[in-house]
């Protein structure tokens, strides 16, 4: 893991409240899809770092890209960053998505709810690198609707067949990502997902019903981001090797878990 001050290379708005910020950092040479970084604020009264998932990395240029929704003080400050600004950054944290599990799968489904899309875009790129043909991958991306705007969907096109859904029907299927999966009769044999808890519960149920593996990325408030404080745990079916109780650390054993292993 690296702990350093990283410089902003580029910052742009993608949709209402959604921003893309590129940093110059050594983390680019270490990270993989599904991992995240902890970013500090410049305020001396907001002392905890914010966990933000990595949307992409260019190890040659030494750059990582973060795409996030403004949800509070930290992300608001980050969204106003200008080229040349610097932030304390720590990472990469977490386990990341298991890319190898898709190896012999015929129909790989990526499900993203709203701001769950960024780590899955990174994953789709990693899957392509691992030799996964575009025909084998479908990405279902759900959005709030016309007022919130849609983002990253065009970038997914290069790696997967893209299906959109929106709460108000303004884009794609009218309804949730799960409605879209049903309506388009997508029959996956493996799922990777990131999004709101309610969506992840539905993904877990779908995977159980079909008897297929699903890897879901969880979020929780974090303090340390390195596995020391035990602030970000999730109830697990089995006792994990670190805690020896049924509470695994999302920042370290996660954020990606096999759906059937977590009690969500």
């Amino acid at each position, binding site marked *: 893991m690296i702990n350093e001050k990283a410089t902003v290379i580029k910052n742009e708005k993608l949709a209402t409240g959604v921003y893309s910020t590129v940093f110059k950092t050594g983390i680019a040479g270490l990270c993989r899809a599904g991992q995240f970084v902890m970013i500090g604020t410049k305020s001396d*009264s907001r*002392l*905890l*770092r914010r966990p933000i998932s990595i949307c992409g990395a260019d190890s040659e240029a030494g750059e990582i890209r973060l795409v996030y929704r403004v949800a509070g003080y930290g992300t608001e400050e980050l969204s106003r960053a200008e080229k040349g600004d610097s932030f304390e950054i720590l990472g990469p944290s977490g386990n990341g998505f298991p890319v190898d599990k898709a190896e012999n799968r015929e129909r790989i489904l990526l499900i993203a709810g709203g701001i769950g899309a960024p780590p899955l875009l990174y994953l789709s790129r990693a899957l392509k690198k691992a030799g996964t043909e575009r025909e084998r991958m479908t990405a279902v991306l759900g959005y709030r609707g016309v007022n919130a705007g849609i983002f990253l969907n065009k970038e997914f096109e290069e790696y997967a067949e893209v299906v959109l859904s929106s709460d108000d029907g303004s884009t794609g299927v009218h309804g949730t990502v799960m409605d879209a999966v049903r309506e388009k009769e997508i029959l996956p044999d493996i799922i990777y997902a990131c999004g709101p808890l309610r969506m992840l519960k539905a993904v877990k149920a779908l995977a159980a019903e079909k008897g297929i593996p699903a890897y879901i990325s969880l979020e929780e408030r974090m303090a*340390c981001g390195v596995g*020391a*404080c035990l*602030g970000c*745990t999730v109830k697990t079916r089995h006792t994990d090797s670190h805690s*020896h109780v049924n509470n695994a650390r999302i920042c370290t054993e996660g954020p990606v878990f096999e759906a059937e292993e977590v009690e969500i």
Partner: protein
Amino acid sequence: MSVDLSVTIAGTVFKNPVMDASGTFGSGMEYAEFTDLNRLGAVVTKGVSNVPWEGNPTPRIAETPSGMMNAIGLQNPGIDVFIKRDLSFLSDFDTNVIVNVCGHTEEEYIEVVERLAGESRVQMLEINVSCPNVRTGGIAFGTDKRMLERVTSLVKKKAKQPVIMKLSPNVTDISEMAKAAEAGGADAISLINTLMAMKIDIYNRKFAIANRTGGLSGPAIRPVAVRMVYDASHAVKIPVIGMGGITSGEDAVEFMMAGASAVAVGMYNFHDPEAMIKVIGGIESFCVKTGVKDIHEIIGCI
């Protein structure tokens, strides 16, 4: 000019007076790639109990102005795993190890203390009678002076290492609690643990922390902590380890001038994983700048 930063507490020599506050640093494992543990005065491990503890439901933490609240609930893997994994890990480092011990009952504290009696890697025990986030044990022992004196003397009878009693700030008179620990035979006291607090998520009409209340820590509580360290250290003869919102060498010096023989860095480890190394450097710079040759010159100097 070289400055002697070493201090001695209950016969144990510390190369410098800086350690972590229990629960903010694990057993040092997760932070070892950012902080050279050999440079610390001590590693204080996260509270350990006789059997594994599940801890509280999430959310367990919330950010607050210049600080944070937590209600982890002392999740830990239990003494067996702790000895096998954490103490073995710490064997490779040249620093003191202080094990924080927690329990629901007197018997549970004693069980852990007895299990640690034969562990040469453990220099001192810190008895957690002040956690505000568990229903029984913890703070219940630390807010009643008779119970505090009783549990201290019970632990002292079985302990093979010097005993530090970690005090709660959630009391009317901290001096009385310090005296009770001393009367029970404590070799040292450490304070303050977190202040009991509450935060409400007004838009969802819910408590920000699932446990409803949590312990407040960070710079927000520092002036309260400095006052309590001052009061406690003037009430007893045993050494005091001071903590509460330390972020820099200057903050550490403030606690030492108030009467602390050593200090612990807590929440700030989360803000900066290299915080303790910077605090040690900051104390040294302060001494050089102000002509202090031996750190003892400033301990309780006001």
